[in-house]
């Protein structure tokens, strides 16, 4: 840890420790010897121009893409060698860029589907909607502003509500690390504000990694910002520091 984070304690055991991570697609290094550390209770925003490798980093953490070399340590689990569902089960949740929900199920059923019980074949066959499941679903629905739409079919929700629903589905899993790929894309101004408030609340007790382009939104949520460029870290630190960095202005913010 070369640099101390601002605003919260930075101990020697980050929740997520990415070291020397490299992935190459036919010789093209989408991520190149990346080092990234995320602490508990931290909201980290990753920004950068298109093709900088932001989404690839999330793909690598959640196991969707396999690393060429390097390590991703999450609470002493080496994620690069685990299967996707095992990574989820140790506490990593990931939201996709476009809302990825089950459109012909209700909001309730969408959330219930992510309840961390009955995840194996026979567990799913005998899964019962017990009171604790209902209570948990209702609590999460209230958190994501959808408690009035609990029995609405998901494809009838607005775009912003679908984004919240997917965040809610992740919350059902009680992840320790939450990764959100452009959570406010396509949201109205008031929805953005509510999402910022939501992120502030749900980052308590867990770590959140967000990819985002909207600078106002980034300012309102980020504890620390990492700027990626061509698979490498260009700058890292507080929003003010990053914004005034001439390199960052040159490749990203200036345009």
């Amino acid at each position: 840890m070369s640099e101390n984070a601002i605003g919260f304690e930075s101990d020697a055991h980050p929740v997520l420790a990415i070291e020397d991570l490299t992935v190459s697609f036919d010789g093209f290094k989408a991520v190149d010897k990346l080092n990234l550390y995320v602490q508990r209770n931290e909201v980290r925003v990753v920004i950068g121009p298109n093709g900088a490798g932001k989404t690839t980093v999330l793909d690598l953490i959640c196991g969707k893409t396999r690393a060429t070399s390097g390590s991703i340590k999450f609470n002493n689990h080496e994620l690069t060698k685990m299967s996707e569902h095992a990574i989820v089960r140790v506490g990593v949740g990931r939201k996709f860029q476009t809302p990825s929900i089950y459109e012909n199920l209700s909001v309730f059923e969408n959330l219930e589907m992510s309840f961390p019980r009955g995840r194996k074949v026979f567990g799913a066959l005998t899964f019962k909607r017990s009171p604790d499941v209902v209570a948990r679903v209702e609590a999460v629905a209230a958190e994501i502003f959808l408690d009035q739409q609990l029995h609405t079919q998901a494809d009838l929700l607005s775009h912003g509500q679908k984004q919240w629903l997917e965040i809610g589905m992740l919350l059902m899993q009680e992840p320790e690390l939450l990764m959100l790929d452009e959570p406010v894309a396509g949201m109205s101004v008031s929805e953005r504000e509510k999402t910022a408030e939501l992120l502030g609340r749900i980052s308590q007790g867990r770590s959140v990694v967000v990819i985002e382009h909207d600078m106002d939104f980034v300012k309102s949520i980020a504890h620390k910002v990492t700027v990626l460029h061509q698979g490498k870290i260009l700058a890292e630190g507080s929003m003010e520091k990053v914004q005034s960095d001439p390199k960052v202005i040159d490749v990203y913010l200036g345009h």
Partner: protein
Amino acid sequence: MNAAYEKLLGGRSGALGLLVMAVLLLVVFPLTMDMFRLNLVGKYLSYAFVAVGLVLCWGYGGILSLGQGVFFGLGGYCMAMFLKLEASDPISTKIQSTPGIPDFMDWNQITALPAMWEPFHSFAFTILAVLVVPTALAMLIGLAMFKRRVGDVYFSIVTQAIAAILSILIIGQQGLTGGVNGITDLKTLMGWDIRTDHAKLVLYFVNAGLLFGCILFGRYVLGSKLGRLLVAMRDKEERVRFSGYDVASFKVFVFCAAAMFSAIGGAMFTLQVGFMSPSFVGIVPSIEMVIFAAVGGRMSLLGAVYGTLLVNFGKTYFSETFPELWLFLMGGLFIAVVMYFPNGLAGLWQTQGKRLMDKLRGQSKPVAPVAAEAAKPVSRASTPEPKRDGIEPGATLEASK
């Protein structure tokens, strides 16, 4: 009890659909048909097992297997091996050069019963083999394919290749399997002559009972969280995977269930028809079975049964009257279903039949049928659920015939 009613029978409408089918299969057909026709229906119903399995794995799981004949055939062959051994006792085969072995082995200069036939002297083993052998094969194929994320059309092609391979293998190993003729001339089941009218009647009812068992099991699966996961996987596989589920294991399960259904159908086919041959294993029968499910409605367990009956009645009628035209007709039917009624007869009944019924009842109900359906609490537990597109497991089909 109430939970079982909701889950297995699918509530009032699901129970009604099941009841109509039960009356049709268990009362109307046996009373109105002569033994020859009833036996024919029994044969069709043994194909319906495959179609019901396809509703689970294709309709809901999105796994289109073009090789279900493999499992139907394996189940049928296991049963045929037992019956053949019983029919080949030393006394009735005393004119053979080696008495006591099946006749086709004798014709192929085989002088001792092959080791793989030995355990089929036991009926208990045979029943176990009918259930386990095809399911184990399905598991093997499923693990090999789904763990490597082979899906969609590639999976279909592989299953089709397996169907071709198995039928070629059976035909090639004449001394072991009876070759292209199959295993014929089956007589008794533990001393009970299966060729008599009485035996055929009993077997018809056993067959129908087992079919209802499979339908109920299918309803249980589709009504559980696993059923919702299957649909979720079909539409958003990545989301399911990144919600902590091992997607492959669910696909393997549903593929195995479909294989086991097919195998039971195959065994019942052998018992009712009295022989088994490679012509029920290969590509053509496997695709025909997919057509049964498609015509009936791939999202409806009951629809698959009606589809099977209808296509087979059609086949019998047309192939007697216009033998050259039948294959074209069948192809045309499949194309028409895919293009115009993607949910088959069951889908047609859902959209048209209910409207018709409401009209027949007179406009006594002011609300549209769909709205009435949505307003009615239909869920299994405390919370109402929205009506989905596609057909619910509890979909009724009583008037589609």
